[in-house]
């Protein structure tokens, strides 16, 4: 089993519903976020291209964040989900520095927090909160190891890219472009 996400940038409108939904579902304190929206505009008026992306921890295959964690608080669970055990985290910031995507942040309570792929929902067979609310249905979540899963098909069928592949972390969030 290998959980992953695919996000169709051709459908995403950057509405940020995925961001608020994560905040309410996971009770993220105001002023912090686990996911965010970025936008790249290229070209010159009137020949323009806009790419909108919903971003979060990539639950990488090669995890510098887990590797650099001195306490073992950052770890990997079933399905390749990268998690942080709050009460083992000393807040040294090593994992933050080692993530090329700036996907982690210091929670005001002192530990480091990040996207959990909503494992508390996934274990009940639900989609992550962000995926489940997305009004444009542009996000797909599932088992990349299962060739019959929707996400595997979507990734196989479309042109995809990952973010900053040169950082070498083997991200597991794929952007359809």
């Amino acid at each position, binding site marked *: 089993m290998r959980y992953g996400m695919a996000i169709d940038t051709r459908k995403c409108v950057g509405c940020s519903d995925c*961001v608020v939904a994560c905040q309410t579902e996971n009770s993220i304190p105001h002023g912090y976020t686990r*996911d965010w929206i970025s*936008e790249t505009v290229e070209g010159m008026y009137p020949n323009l291209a806009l790419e909108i992306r919903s971003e979060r921890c990539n639950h990488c295959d090669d995890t510098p964040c887990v590797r*650099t964690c001195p306490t*073992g608080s950052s770890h990997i669970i079933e399905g390749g989900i990268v998690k942080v055990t709050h009460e083992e985290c*000393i807040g040294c910031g*090593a994992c933050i520095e080692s993530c090329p995507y*700036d996907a982690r942040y*210091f929670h005001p309570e002192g530990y480091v927090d990040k996207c959990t792929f909503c494992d508390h929902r996934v274990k009940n067979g639900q989609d992550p909160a962000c995926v489940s609310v997305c009004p444009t249905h542009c996000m797909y979540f599932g088992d990349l190891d299962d060739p019959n899963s929707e996400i595997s098909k979507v990734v196989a069928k479309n042109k995809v890219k990952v973010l900053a592949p040169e950082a070498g972390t083997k991200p597991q969030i794929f952007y359809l472009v």
Partner: protein
Amino acid sequence: MREELITSGRMNPGIDPVLHGWHWPIPFYLFVGGLAAGLLFFAAYKVLFGKEKDFPTAVMIGPFVALAAIVMGLMALIYDLHHPLYAWQLFTTIRIESPMSWGAWTLMIVSIVNAVWIFTYLKKIFPDFNLKQNFLRKVISNFIEEKQSEGKLNWDWKYKFLRDFESFLIKNRKALAWLMMILSIILGVYTGILLSAFNARPLWNTALLGPLFLTSGFSTGAAMLMILSKTHLEKIAFSKIDVLLIIIELFFITHMFMGYLAGSEVKAEAAHYFMGGEFTVTFWVNVIILGLVVPLALETMELLNVKIPVIIPGLLILWGGMMFRFIMVDAGQVIRYLY
């Protein structure tokens, strides 16, 4: 025009608009770590090569400064933790892949060996000493015999195991020196590669940063000894070492920037931060000119027998070494992968 922006979300303090997850304690910790590594290396080296007599500062005073530096460094490190009360968890695991874990353990072991080293020299450094009636004296007098005459203290241990331990160490000083030399190199390499282990940051992602920090650490150690030394012999010796180390450093720095420029788009961009960009002035003035070129010139003159108070190049090297680490930590957090 290319416009790249985070349109919503991610106002996580410490992450946005630029990463500053690590603050002053980390570069400070790297600086004192490098300094301590240099000091301990020279102490051990001089003992191993039988120069103990000629280099009393390096062998006996340096390690004191090193221990103080390590303690300050550890304190800074813990201060930077967001959960300092959990710091003990650093020592419930060894995670070889984690430079932080490695560093915590290295520092702990080095500080023990360092303390032991000092222990073996206590008699030589403070043959007789006076201490007012205070807490420290009370503690110490639990372990040593007080000399009745004049209330002076010396290091006559009360307990046999301490006396045995001491003579055992002195007998095996060479072995201890070997151990400390190896550990000091590990410490130096560690402070060097801490950043380059974080290859998520394009600026830190270079193999040259390790050797460069190692050299720079040793050079600050030599500079410190240069300042502390009382004899001309010692001063000149470390001055020479420093000239050599500075030349090596300049060589590494040139190569590092050439590497950036020849590298990927982000790497080239990283280099531009130092060549016209945000960090240009601070870097060139503090690190290259004040920290390397000027002291190099001054020391060369000194070696050519022009009288220059050694404290000036010494302090400049220390300053440059510290600024180098502050700038690298800061800039490394600013420069990110583009996508």
